[in-house]
């Protein structure tokens, strides 16, 4: 059946991060016919976590949530011939993800469905050759040299563009599984494939990139995380759908019959989200200017976008590199009572004094009094917040004395400020976060929280959750690599072939 390019291409995104709502993809495809379902799982540091999983098990290292989602949409894939899936669920292991997805498809009677795996973003396996070829891994903003050697790097991935996804679609893939690809390229590729736009048609590439940017964070475009949360229900929130036309016009809509909203406000909030310099929003496919875009409310839950502009992108791919940088853990206690602020400082002091006495004090720590105004440092102490939240508070002042607790990262404790908030706050969560290169020091830190249940001040609770876990710290290091050094490509096979040939070389 020849594709009708006179109709808009409908691309719905139903996952904005690894951990997003598992039901959203199924609800979308069951109620709204889309041509492409995209599922976005990779934040800046997700790859290094997945790299850790792959190191422990060579069949892991991808977003396993995707398998649950694929199971839930398999009936729709069987019924809806137009439905395709493009996802970066492959993470650090697109091949293993393709095999696992294929097992599921075969079991669902979809053995003939073709899956493409996009490869070529993982730079760690070629790190030394790439370094020898002139890749210096300098920080993309500061120009600083990478402060660690190869052995400390947990992951290094290039943000690939739309090309290898288009390659997979051209080979009749219905499901495309990528690793690190720019989020917006998950949307740009289906549009390029459907309409056959030229690779230097910057205006239309900008249109598809903006559409991708609006939908990439899921419900954040459809009323999620909005200040208007009182104005519409969110329990069955719809996820966003971009309708892209041949001429490069875009309409944002959402799952049919769903909660949430698509209006000028929800779309503008998401247009601004994490864009940095709006005149130079760099993607691997096109550099977009957000200052020309115009919006128009076309009807209920439909917003049109137009007047796009873009220009040639840089000749390099952005690289997301992460290196191991010690260990961290956070411990929490509930502190209750009229003197909660003073008591929290004392409790933190006791913990750190005990660690110091056995030479196990962490190199860096940070103390937060959550509920007393530390969630956004100092701001929630401002006059406006006080008048909004605390006008009726009439607590007697505790006889507050500064405990002069200071950390390497906290601003100095002001006795006057502490006395002031002590008057207003009668319960809070004390949260202490510690960092050290020595895992043993962080392990010991996690064991010093619960003892306060019986050996600290009265009015502490919340230690029943058990000891907190120690996590490796992964430092994010953005770099770049010349596009000419990489060869992104796609491997496309039927589900049955993926299983038959697993373990075989690419």
């Amino acid at each position, binding site marked *: 059946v020849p594709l009708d390019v006179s109709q808009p291409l409908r691309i719905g995104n139903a996952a904005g991060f690894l951990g997003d709502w598992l039901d959203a993809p199924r609800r979308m495809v069951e109620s709204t016919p889309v041509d492409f379902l995209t599922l976005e799982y990779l*934040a*800046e*540091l997700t790859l290094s976590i997945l790299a850790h999983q792959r190191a422990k098990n060579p069949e892991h290292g991808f977003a396993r949530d995707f398998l649950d989602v694929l199971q839930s949409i398999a009936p729709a894939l069987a019924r809806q011939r137009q439905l395709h899936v493009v996802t970066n669920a492959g993470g650090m292991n697109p091949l293993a993800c393709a095999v696992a997805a294929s097992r599921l498809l075969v079991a669902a009677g979809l053995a003939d469905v073709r899956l493409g795996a996009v490869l070529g973003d993982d730079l760690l396996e070629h790190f030394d050759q790439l370094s020898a070829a002139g890749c210096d891994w300098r920080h993309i*903003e500061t120009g600083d040299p990478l402060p660690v050697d190869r052995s400390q790097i947990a992951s290094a991935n290039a943000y690939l563009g739309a090309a290898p996804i288009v390659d997979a679609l051209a080979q009749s893939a219905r499901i495309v599984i990528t690793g690190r690809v720019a989020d917006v390229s998950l949307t740009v590729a289906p549009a390029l494939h459907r309409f056959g736009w030229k690779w230097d048609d910057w205006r239309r590439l900008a249109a598809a990139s903006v559409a991708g940017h609006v939908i990439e964070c899921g419900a*954040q475009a459809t009323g999620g*995380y*909005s*200040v*208007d949360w*009182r*104005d519409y229900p969110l329990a069955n929130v719809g996820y966003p759908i971009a309708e892209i036309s041949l001429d490069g016009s875009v309409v944002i809509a959402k799952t049919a019959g769903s909660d949430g909203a698509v209006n000028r*406000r929800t779309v*503008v*909030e*998401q*247009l*601004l*989200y*994490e*864009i*940095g*310099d*709006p*005149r130079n929003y760099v993607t691997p496919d096109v550099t977009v200017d*957000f*200052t*020309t*875009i*115009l*919006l128009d409310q076309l009807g209920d839950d439909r917003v049109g976008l137009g*007047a796009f502009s873009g220009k040639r992108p840089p000749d390099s791919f952005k690289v997301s590199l992460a290196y191991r*940088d010690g260990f*961290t853990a*956070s411990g929490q206690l509930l502190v209750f009572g009229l003197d909660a602020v003073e008591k929290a400082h004392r409790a933190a002091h006791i913990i750190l004094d005990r660690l110091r006495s056995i030479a196990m004090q962490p190199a*860096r*720590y*940070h103390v*937060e009094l*959550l509920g007393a105004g530390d*969630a*956004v*440092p*100092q*701001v*929630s102490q*401002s*006059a*406006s917040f006080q*008048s*909004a939240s605390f006008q009726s508070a009439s607590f007697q002042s505790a006889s507050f004395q500064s405990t002069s607790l200071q950390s390497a*990262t906290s*601003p100095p404790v002001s006795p006057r400020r502490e006395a002031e908030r002590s008057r207003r706050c009668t319960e809070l969560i004390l*949260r202490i*976060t510690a*960092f050290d290169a020595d895992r043993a020091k962080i392990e010991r830190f996690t064991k010093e929280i619960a003892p306060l249940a019986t050996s600290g001040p009265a009015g502490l609770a919340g230690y029943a959750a058990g000891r907190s876990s120690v996590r490796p*710290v*992964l*430092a*994010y290091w*953005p770099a770049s690599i010349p596009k000419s050094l990489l060869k992104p490509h796609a491997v496309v096979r039927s589900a049955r072939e993926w299983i038959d040939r697993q373990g075989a070389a690419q």
Partner: protein
Amino acid sequence: VNVPNPHDPNQNAPTIRLGQIAHARSGDKGNHANIGVAAHTHEGYEYLAAHLSAERVAEFFAGLSSSRVERFELPNLDALNFLLYNALDGGASRSPRIDTQGKLLGTAILELPLPSPAPERLAAMQPEAPSQRPA
């Protein structure tokens, strides 16, 4: 709601909350925080362009110890975008804060006090239905 603005040399001048004339969303760009502020109306955008400077935002978020704040204008969307450099104390991976990615800053900035415009001008900056209640 008129509250004293501690940053204003004239402490008794009436103020409004930014949230009366704008909405906002924030997130991270590595170790930088990105805060988008969109006016409810074009009149409100012009007021923000005149009064919500990079310096004013830097002062409001002094507790974040940003190295620099840059403001970008998007008059086509009646919006401003602010980049707070090195505001996240290490960013998503290394920040010791509970809000490692600066997601709360968009809610926080709605409490930034601005000088109060004349009542008829303020009315032209506020949203139509559905109601925009204080967060």
